[in-house]
């Protein structure tokens, strides 16, 4: 029996999960990041702990959570911390290996905009803002970005507003951040990667059937390609089975 072909959500979740190999702590929002972390826990990162910005550590949810503060994350958790402790001692304290962030716009240095489209004072669209994103960027050892849509408006030469700056911008402002900033961007076209300060995001891998030119055309800056560009290994049947049967059997997020 062959598994059904992977959906876009499944593909992104599987690819993100693989990138979490051997990591210990991940700061994840609800949706694809949770799916990725849960799958990684079952596969490449058995010691992985998901920390939620609401204050939950070591959750053992009875149901797939609908928010980062879902009651099912609390009941049976190993610890529920006050927010000053979570943000101060856990996140700023340097205990998070990987933080997942989303954004409306990203630039080649991995700077992120989640505040406004247009001018902040008279925005065309008011977005939610930082939440904890600015802190995750400044304090997690590295940041993974999962963005379904890969187009030049989202992957832009110039952000309308920088909500969560990578280390290069921080250093220019005289502030030394703890981590490397965005190191992986996982999209429907492939994976962009950078290692740290002074490095641009480069195309590291494409999904099967996608060419480097496709990705360059979808990116708003002149995207460089890694020397060892690879093709993403499609989700295995084992990965898909875990995702479909154990992680999200009701397909809450696997739309």
């Amino acid at each position, binding site marked *: 029996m062959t598994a059904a072909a992977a959906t876009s959500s499944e593909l992104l979740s599987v690819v993100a999960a693989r990138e979490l190999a051997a990591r210990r702590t991940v700061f994840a929002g609800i949706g694809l990041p949770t799916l990725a972390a849960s799958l990684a826990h079952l596969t490449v990162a058995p010691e992985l702990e998901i920390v939620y910005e609401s204050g939950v550590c070591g959750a053992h949810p009875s149901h797939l959570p*609908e928010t980062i503060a879902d009651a099912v994350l609390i009941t049976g958790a190993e610890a529920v911390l006050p927010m000053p402790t979570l943000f101060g001692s856990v996140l700023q304290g340097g205990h998070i290996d990987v933080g997942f962030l989303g954004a409306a716009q990203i630039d080649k240095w991995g700077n992120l905009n989640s505040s406004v489209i247009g001018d*902040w004072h008279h925005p065309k669209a008011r977005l939610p803002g930082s939440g904890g994103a600015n802190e995750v960027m400044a304090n997690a050892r590295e940041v993974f970005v999962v963005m379904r849509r890969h187009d030049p408006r989202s992957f832009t030469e110039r952000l309308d507003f920088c909500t969560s700056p990578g280390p290069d*911008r921080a250093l220019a402002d005289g502030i030394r951040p703890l981590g490397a900033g965005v190191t992986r961007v996982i999209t429907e076209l492939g994976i962009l990667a950078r290692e740290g300060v002074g490095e641009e995001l480069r195309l590291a891998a494409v999904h099967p059937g996608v060419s480097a030119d496709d990705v360059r055309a979808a990116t708003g800056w002149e995207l460089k390609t890694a020397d060892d560009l690879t093709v993403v290994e499609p989700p295995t049947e084992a990965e898909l089975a875990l995702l479909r049967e154990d992680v999200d059997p009701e397909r809450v997020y696997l739309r």
Partner: protein
Amino acid sequence: MSAVDKTMTMREAIAAHVHDGDTVSLEGFTHLIPTAAGHEIIRQGRRDLTVIRMTADIVVDQMLAAGCVSKLVSSFVGNSSAGSLGELRRRVESARPAPLEFEEYSHYGMICRYIAGAQRLPFYPLRSYGGSDLPEVNSSLRKVTSPYPGPDGGTEQIYVVPPVNPDVTIVHAQRADRSGNTQIWGLTGVQAEAVYAARKAVVVVEEVVDGEVVRSDPNRTVVPAHAVNAVVECPRGAHPSFAQGYYDRDNAFYRSWSAISKDKERLTAWLAEWVHGTRDHAEYVAKLGEEFWDGLVVGEAMSLPVNYGRRL
């Protein structure tokens, strides 16, 4: 030792402690959002409030739509992950029906403002904001040079935020005794700091309990009586958010809010029916109906008791 009875009705508490022009903090991170208090502020027609709330969500959109708010201080303006806040976007994007002054932070920036306010500090340092555009649109985000050498031996700079001291902080909790010793379990958020930062504090609870209940587990008291001015018993007052162990989150209502709030007429009708059209939160609860509440019932998962010990 203090045993002053601070219980009052929501109507009394809002009338006594929230005035036109006040700075009002409403806290509760996803859990225990003081919605019923927001609705009573709307019913009493407060104007020109500065509202402080980390996650400006449905209750803030409702207070905006009711014309109570002239300024918002926040770190996240959105309807959780369930969509947009229609009124907030109209106010910010097109000044309809009136402009909204907006002071923007990140979550930890807001947390640190509360801590600084609670601890009476002139500023609080945090490792956020370096290279961000936020300091360009918020002049309260400033830098301080550390008087100690940095990791490389040179000088080190860090951003700081100023304290916030609301005129009143309102929080929702599971239970309190009559004098205001307040117990919260599950997510405790930043409620303690928001209360200590404020000049006055109103605690809204699912139930007022005997002092003996509180005193059987003093570590569970997140806010002691000396920091509380009013205790309001208001069951289900956190709807559509949840109260751990009391009722679950009304996710359907969250999902419906984008459509309600996108259409100003529909939003006005919603307020007329559910807020202005109900005398108090008990009526709002009754109007939703028992069948509705049955859908949010939670089962039991009791904590194991611990022994505090008794001298023999």
